[in-house]
């Protein structure tokens, strides 16, 4: 029970921390876009990103990060919904099975989508600057190392965790069937 309570508290801290961060970032973004002069000078420096200095290709990787972050908030929301029945010792309830499956699927989607966007972003950006990867003397190996860095250990780990949660959901589903059978054995 202590483990579940600790897990619940950590997930709540993560979830609400991300919500607060998102709201503050969104407000800052809006203010920076429409009323930049009202912000301190250090924040005004970020205005360079929105005044058309950079081409749209530069935005692909930051966009993938934002999309991944938002989807991650949704997946943590579903993970939070799993904790309540677990805390009440209802291990084999539909809530746990369905929400674990949703979280697992979202983790997989996040890792695949952000990785693809990063790879696309990397090559589009490279085509723009034409100096880093394809043009380098390392050729094929430079491309490989760029792709590996775009995939990243965290995305790879998220994919594994996503698959693990799907397996976990199936295990709970089997457990539910066995429990039903056990309950109906007289």
């Amino acid at each position, binding site marked *: 029970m202590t483990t579940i309570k600790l897990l619940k508290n950590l997930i709540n801290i993560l979830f609400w921390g991300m919500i607060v961060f998102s709201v503050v970032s969104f407000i800052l973004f809006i203010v920076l876009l429409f009323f930049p002069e009202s912000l301190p000078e250090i924040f005004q420096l970020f205005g360079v990103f929105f005044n058309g200095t950079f081409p749209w290709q530069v935005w692909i990787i930051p966009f993938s990060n934002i999309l991944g972050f938002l989807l991650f908030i949704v997946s943590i929301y579903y993970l939070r919904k799993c904790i309540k029945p677990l805390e009440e010792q209802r291990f084999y309830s539909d809530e746990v099975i369905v929400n674990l499956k949703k979280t697992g699927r979202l983790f997989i989607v996040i890792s695949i989508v952000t990785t693809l966007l990063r790879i696309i972003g990397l090559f589009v950006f490279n085509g723009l600057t034409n100096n880093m990867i394809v043009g380098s003397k390392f050729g094929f190996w430079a491309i490989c190392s760029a792709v590996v860095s775009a995939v990243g250990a965290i995305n790879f780990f998220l994919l594994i965790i996503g698959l693990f949660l799907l397996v976990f959901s199936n295990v709970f589903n089997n457990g539910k069937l066995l429990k*039903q*059978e056990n309950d*109906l*054995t*007289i």
Partner: protein
Amino acid sequence: MPIVVNLDIMLVKRGMKSKELAEIIGITTANMSILKSGKAKAVRFSTLEAICKALDCQPSDILEYVED
């Protein structure tokens, strides 16, 4: 399910109420209801033994195979 529980018939034959049988064999009335309605997935040998003892009958008097 092709296995039919004929507990009702045996209870009528022995003039016993299902609540009484539940008390004798030590199961809840809810479980007795599950058993009588045919919703049960399995019956333990110990339960079957207790039922046969209480109703003075054979397992075949209670359980019957009917093809779907």
